[in-house]
């Protein structure tokens, strides 16, 4: 099976920022992504868990995006414009995909 190189970008960000992030990505031409709920974690703000979050203020979501390598810079610029001032992590890994025409 033929595989094609791609970039996997994972952005973990505060839940209240999800809409703003997806809008920024859409404005940058990135319309394919998956949003996953985050159960909990630990970071500079301490430990937290989705259990017992009465408000979205304390929760996080993970947004996963697979894109062609040449679109990475535009995506990162859009993502960082939102993530910069908020609690969040952006990671980029090399990956391979089938059906490259979908990315």
């Amino acid at each position, binding site marked *: 099976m033929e595989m094609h190189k791609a970039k996997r970008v994972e952005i973990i960000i505060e839940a209240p920022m999800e*809409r703003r992030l997806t*809008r920024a990505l859409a404005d940058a031409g990135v319309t394919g992504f998956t949003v996953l709920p985050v159960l909990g974690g630990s970071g500079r703000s*301490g430990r937290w868990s989705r259990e017992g*979050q009465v*408000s979205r*203020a304390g929760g996080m979501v993970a947004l996963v995006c697979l894109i062609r390598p040449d679109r990475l810079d535009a995506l990162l610029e859009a993502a960082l414009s939102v993530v910069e001032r908020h609690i969040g992590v952006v990671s980029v890994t090399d990956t391979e995909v089938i059906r490259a025409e979908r990315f």
Partner: protein
Amino acid sequence: MTEIFSLAADNLISPIILSFVLGLVASFARSDLSIPEAVAKGLSIYLLFSIGFKGGAGVAAHGIDATLVGSLIAGIILSFALPFIAYGYLRILTRLPTIDAAAVAAHYGSISIVTFVAATSVLEGRGIPSEGYMVAVAAVMEAPAILSALWLVMRSGKSADVEEGLWREILLNGSIVLLIGAFLIGWITGEDGLREIEAFVVAPFKGALCLFLLDMGLVAGRGLRESRGILGVGAVAFGVLMPVTGSLIGLATALLLGLSTGGTVLMMVLAASASYIAVPAAMRVALPDANPSIYLTLSLGVTFPFNLTLGIPLYVALAGAVAGQ
């Protein structure tokens, strides 16, 4: 004074308060008891719908008057003004940076719908009627405080992350839409509509509130446990002083408006309570540099339990002593 203690004692052994205490105790004991997120959300939707509907049906029965309009305007003014008092207290009692103080202040200008729901339950249990439109006053008091907080931040020269979408999200947040929507449905359908769904919105209400407060106790306890050391003595003192101050301002406002004893209690509760659902989410977006542990722990871990256990009986006694004459 004796009446206050008697009311407090009665309140403390009520099912709704004991459910909250159970949640607190379970959390401190590190029990794995938890209410699934979807269930808590479902209970919240049920409580908001029921309280909104009953409020609207109440207004349908008694009609609109100048006091209703006056109460709505007063509520908006209170929501704008209380953050400035809260901010002043915080500058005196704590060494919180401007941005944290402003974020906390926004919470205390807004309201806790759960405290409001608990207070209506206490009033119903005591046979004290209240104006149905206080639900609408609760809804209009959710958002203006956020504007005041942003003004405080911008005045200090710092920046806030405000964009057009933020206001839409705040004003159309689920709680407000559901509360106002249910209120309108109750108002349009009136007593007949209430009779149709009475078995759903009236009879199970207290039981559902018990479960919801059990979850709130778990959340508050967890927050207190994990935020140990975050709040200093001054901040904790603020968490008690501000609701009492707010309640007195609410009392004065209610007297000026000529509200009933029950309406006075609810106005006091609204002025004394602090948001921990809508405003924290707005603060994460608009003031990301503010520390969420501070404002969440204060509003949910200090003020909410205080209002629930001691505050509501105090406000009922005060309102009865002053407005009941």
